[in-house]
């Protein structure tokens, strides 16, 4: 094992190449650009020996990945913001075709107005495509999650594509150390992908033809079953990773000081890391608060959230908004608790457009929720009042 100190994107490129995908098809977009540039460097140095396809758009990137994955080979791509949105049609296609593509999405604002900073509305708006969604909070977690994602996506009980999300710049362009296993260890962990079906020129068959309602319903049901299987398999994979490599970032949720907590803060992505500092400070002032950092938005960890709400009121921070309602995580958490808990749940929107969210901001959010000064969904700091 060696320690690599680099940006989230270059560490993601390292993970992608070490997973030995047969095909990478990608189109560059800020802030994802340095990730695919990193893979291109590995092509130039000979360290990456797969097929690297430069395409003319993100719709084409995902289409090429679908074609590649359908032939039964390991496939990786990466995008961000508008690139992800341009893929939208093909995201549904990849999931319905049950293709275990792994993709990094670097969470960035959607324009106009043009802005390249962190915001999770891009991936949140792809919630219903059938993709599994991870949200990372450190460069180490990016590396580990990419490797784990191939294992999970290609698992015979899952066979779904996975989106590994992390915040623009805050992680993509920040250098932090990450332990990198030896190639042999990754090879042993990630066996060669064996598809359950694949396109084969020697045995031609047709897919994508018209099917009746009854069969279509079965396809949807099978996808739902696969996501529910992932609820069980993702924690198993996390546990196995800990045993093999000594690192654990949580399973569906990373829990921090939740055992005796009277309040639990929910967040995702980079805010989830900064939140730990806020929790430490609030605890040092005698407030019994814990952190639940949601790692998988799909499948949604409803059961774990119900368990956490047994003895605590909840505070939720969203770096996204479903315009016309409220933050998406806030909505989902309340839905998970309906009829199962009477915990009070307060929602806060913070950090849209890449606005910095400091631990002091997070402490203030928690204090406002604990003091009962908020109702429903609150835009934190919108009038400059922190």
């Amino acid at each position, binding site marked *: 094992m060696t320690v690599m*100190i680099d940006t989230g994107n270059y560490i993601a490129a390292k993970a992608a190449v070490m997973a030995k995908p047969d095909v990478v098809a990608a189109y560059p977009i800020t802030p994802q650009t340095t990730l695919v540039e990193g893979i291109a460097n590995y092509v130039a140095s000979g360290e990456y020996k797969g097929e690297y396809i430069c395409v003319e758009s993100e719709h084409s990137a995902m289409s090429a990945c679908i074609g590649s994955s359908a032939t039964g080979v390991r496939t990786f791509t990466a995008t961000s913001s508008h690139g992800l949105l341009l893929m939208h049609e093909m995201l549904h296609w990849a999931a319905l075709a049950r293709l275990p593509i792994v993709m990094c999405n670097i969470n960035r604002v959607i324009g106009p107005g043009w802005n390249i900073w962190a915001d999770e509305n891009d991936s949140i708006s792809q919630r219903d495509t059938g993709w599994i969604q991870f949200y990372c*909070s450190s460069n180490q977690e990016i590396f580990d999650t990419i490797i784990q994602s191939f294992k999970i996506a290609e698992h015979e009980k899952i066979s779904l594509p996975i989106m590994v999300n992390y915040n*623009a710049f805050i992680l993509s362009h920040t250098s932090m*150390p990450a332990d990198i296993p030896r190639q042999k260890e990754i090879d042993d962990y990630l066996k060669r992908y064996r598809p359950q079906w694949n396109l084969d020129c020697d045995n031609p068959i047709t897919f994508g033809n018209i099917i009746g309602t009854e069969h279509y319903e079965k396809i949807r049901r099978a996808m739902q079953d696969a996501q529910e299987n992932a609820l069980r398999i993702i924690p198993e994979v996390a546990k196995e990773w800990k045993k093999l490599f000594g690192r654990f970032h949580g399973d569906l949720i990373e829990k921090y000081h939740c055992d005796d907590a009277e309040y639990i803060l929910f967040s995702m992505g*980079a805010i989830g*890391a900064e939140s730990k500092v806020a929790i430490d*400070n609030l605890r040092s002032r005698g407030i019994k608060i814990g952190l639940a950092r949601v790692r998988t938005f799909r499948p949604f960890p409803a059961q774990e959230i119900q368990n956490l709400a047994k003895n605590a009121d909840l505070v939720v921070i969203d770096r996204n908004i479903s315009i016309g309602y409220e933050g998406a995580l806030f909505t989902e958490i309340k839905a998970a608790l309906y009829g199962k808990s009477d915990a009070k749940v307060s929602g806060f929107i913070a950090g849209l457009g*890449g606005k910095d969210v*400091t*631990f002091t901001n997070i402490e203030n959010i928690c204090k406002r929720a604990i003091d009962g000064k908020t109702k429903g969904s609150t835009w934190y700091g919108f009038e400059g009042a922190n």
Partner: protein
Amino acid sequence: MPVKDIIEIVFHGRGGQGSVTAANLLVSAALADGNKGVQAFPVFGAERRGAPVRAFARISENEINLRSEIYYPDIVIVQDESIIGLVDITKGLKENGRILINTTKKPSDFDFSDKYGVATVDATGIAIKHDILVGGIPVVNTPILGAVPKILDKVTLKSIQASVKNKWKGELAEKNVRATQDAFGEVEVNF
């Protein structure tokens, strides 16, 4: 509120002067010196050549969970003296904070030297002396790092020089290493 047990450093420079590279080299050295938690990052966004820019570095013995910008630095490193006056480089600087400036002046020449620890080194002169030029313009980001061990005991000159050799090869690496050695020897401090 400042954070405990983490050294927070803000680099002030001009776009193109390699502030981000300097931050990265510094934290690589800090990691080699046994600091398990390190971070280096730019001001997030699109920088313009010649405009005042900032880069950030954090150094700690433990894993760092902070993901926000630095508002209360322990150390400020000024790569371009002409920025002083355009940008309030002491903004948020902790009471016992230290400022390292690329200048031909002495620490006492700066009016904030009675309030903060000030270190000065002629990184531009050192860059010219060692022919560290890009397009005829002296590159000061590596030379100035040689002065950092004099204001921060968590990083050694040896590790900084190893980071330089890791980033560049051959004569380019060697002249950068010599520049850091000169900066280490020539830096003047008021503490």
